């Protein structure tokens, strides 16, 4: 134990010294990150041959802490780029690593994720975007949807079907798609709450060089699952998303805040989607609804749900840290509970607001935030895996009940699917 702490301390000292001589808030952001990469501090959790030092998570956290103390900025932050970094590092060819990792870390390249399609929502593996090898190049045709930030992405993580004569999971391949080419058209996708946080991507004879296939043909489904598992990994030094260094005025911080804003913009309505439970008691006090015994019941139900869901998550966290193996996947349970919280919160907000629930816009309750809750909450039980999919997961994987009989196990060519008009 003391030895580990000693080691962390020496890391802290080393990175501190390095930052003291290299960190300069007057440099342009990308230039600074080039220095960071050269110094080996952009991705200390990565292997040494790829800008890293092979640090474990505790060591990476120690580095991050020093960065934060010195208000030094790290590698480009989160978003689909995190997934791209993860998959290229883990499964990419040498050539792919050489070409993509550096601009991912400096933030010069933006990425997006091209998995979902209009015809395959819950059934991701039922995708029908087609990639055909013609004259030594992959020609891609199809349509993707729910793509965050596609409109300023340089590259996309693409799933496309390359073999129609095998069962659906086996015919999918994984590509790194250059978004800056004529065959790519990106259109904003407006949601019922008025935001356009996502895009539709229409792909018409887009070209992918064979060296931009990840893994082998048919590996796509496995690689897609691997990709999603990178959502929580932490081997790169990036600022916490909540730390904006708002008081700092040096140009590099300005540039950095623009980068963050662009990244976070699509998510601005997510707190409303979750139900804004935090607003319930203040608003109930303000409107007088807090004195209504019937609404008190509804508010209390909401608080119970919300509080207990946090407790379940905390317990799952404690169990996972301790390595104990409780069979309950807190993920699906929490996801279902949060759908219910959002529904109940929208219900409570409606009745707390009374007649004000009729109105929208900046002059409405809480500057329109309440209306935004009412119009966003339906997404909570759909996005990221519908309630129905979560219930399948729980009943089959946790409770061990039999799987739904499948009718889509034959060659994909013969499986019924939706006809989508682009």
């Amino acid at each position, binding site marked *: 134990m003391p030895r580990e702490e000693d080691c962390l301390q020496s890391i802290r000292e080393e990175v501190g010294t390095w930052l003291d001589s290299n960190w300069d808030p007057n440099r342009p952001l990308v230039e600074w990150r080039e220095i960071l990469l050269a110094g080996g501090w952009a991705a200390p959790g990565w292997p040494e041959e790829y800008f890293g030092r092979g640090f474990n998570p505790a060591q990476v956290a120690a580095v991050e802490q020093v960065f934060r103390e010195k208000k030094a900025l790290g590698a480009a932050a989160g978003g689909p780029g995190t997934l791209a970094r993860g998959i290229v590092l883990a499964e990419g060819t040498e050539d792919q690593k050489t070409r993509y990792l550096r601009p991912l870390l400096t933030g010069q390249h933006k990425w997006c994720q091209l998995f979902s399609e209009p015809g395959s*929502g819950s059934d991701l593996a039922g995708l029908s975007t087609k990639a055909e090898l013609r004259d030594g190049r992959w020609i891609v045709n199809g349509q993707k949807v729910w793509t965050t930030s596609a409109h300023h992405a340089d590259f996309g993580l693409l799933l496309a079907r390359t073999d129609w004569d095998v069962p659906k999971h086996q015919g999918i391949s994984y590509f790194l798609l250059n978004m800056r080419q004529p065959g790519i058209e990106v259109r904003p996708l407006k949601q019922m709450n008025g935001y356009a946080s996502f895009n539709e991507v229409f792909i018409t004879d887009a070209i992918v060089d064979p060296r931009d296939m990840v893994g082998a043909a048919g590996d796509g489904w496995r690689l897609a699952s691997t990709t999603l598992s990178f959502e929580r990994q932490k081997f790169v030094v990036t600022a916490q998303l909540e730390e904006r260094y708002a008081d700092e005025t040096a140009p590099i911080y300005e540039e950095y805040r623009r980068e963050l804003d662009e990244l976070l913009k699509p998510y601005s309505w997510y707190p409303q989607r979750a139900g804004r439970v935090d607003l319930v008691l203040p608003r109930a006090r303000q409107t007088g609804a807090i004195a209504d015994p019937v609404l008190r019941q509804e508010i209390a139900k909401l608080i119970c749900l919300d509080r207990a869901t946090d407790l379940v998550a905390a317990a799952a966290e404690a169990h996972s840290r301790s390595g104990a193996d409780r069979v309950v996947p807190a993920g699906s349970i929490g996801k279902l509970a949060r759908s219910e919280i959002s529904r109940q919160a929208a219900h409570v907000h409606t009745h707390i607001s*009374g007649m004000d629930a009729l*109105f929208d816009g900046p*002059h409405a309750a809480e500057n329109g935030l309440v209306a935004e809750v009412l119009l966003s909450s339906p997404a909570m039980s759909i996005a990221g895996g519908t309630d129905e999919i979560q219930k399948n997961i729980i009943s089959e994987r946790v409770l061990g009940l039999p799987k739904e009989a499948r009718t889509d196990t034959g060659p994909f060519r013969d*499986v019924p699917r939706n006809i989508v008009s682009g």
Partner: protein
Amino acid sequence: MSLPLTEEQTHFQDVVTRFLADNADTARLRRQIELEAGYDRETWRRLCCELCLPGTHIPEEYGGHGFGPVEFGIVMHAMGRFLYSGPFMASAVMAAQAILIAGSEDQKRELLQDIASGSVVAALALDEWTRPDALGTRVQADRTDNGYRLNGSATVLVDAGVAELFIAAARGPDNSVSLYCIDAGASGVAVSSLETIDLTRRAARVQFTDATADILGVGDSLDIERLWDHLCVALALEMLGGAEELFYSTVEYMKMRVQFGRVIGSFQALKHRCADLLVSLELARAASQHALHCLASGEGDVYAPNMAKAMASEVYMDVARAAIQLRGGIGFTWEDDTHLWFRRAKSSEVLLGSPYWHRERMMQRIEELAHAA
């Protein structure tokens, strides 16, 4: 109890439905929404002149057709089914009903004729749309030499500029609430649009500043509850129309949409959700039909309007939530029509009183009856 339709009634239903399907489809609705025009004036003109719908339920002596509750129910259902966004509800139902209940014979004769023909659009202006006991708290009426003057602010369920005549509830000098008739063009009347959750039922704020007004009736205090009952039943019928349309369109979508190699309508959990919704719909439909006949006959359960509105509110929201969920991500897009019904369901849920309010009122009425007996 709802009886089967006669041949004439079925024909009437077909005509109304076909007209709205042809002239008030969602493509047109969306154009009005984008233009912020509120409603399509040409469709409204034809609905008045060709179908004469605003006069459906207005008695013949006041220039209407004097049709019975069945025809009125058919019209309200169709209005709700197509989310009709013209001033039918505001003028022909709400304002006309207020005049029928509160107006003197002369006023009925004078005002209803134009409302029935559609040549005047009237709108009920209330300072409180969710509970009748709070009416008149924000609008005050004072006597003048030759009438009244109004001060305060109210809300109408049409966009600014649509209504030519307001029927406003206000508290008079003796503290009782009455209805007053105000020319929308009169001085001291300022109307401004409000942003609403329901894109197909606009609203506006009406500000009265010493606005000249005539009292409806002869100053006897208004039977607010009777008016409220009528409005609730009309709204409940409209809501059922919307809920049924949305429900059956969802079922059709489920027969077409494929996931995992089969139509999603073949998944038992989704089938059972639909079955539950159908039960709730049938119950709410029976309740609203029953309330309509109770009001028309003056007999039957006194709490029937509360029951109808409470049940319609809950089933419409249940259907609206399910309609989005069962469509998945597509149902959450702007481009898909589902949210237009969802927004109507959400605003109708609180309009004229939440299910909670109506259930409480229902219990009060049951207990009042029990104590009277």
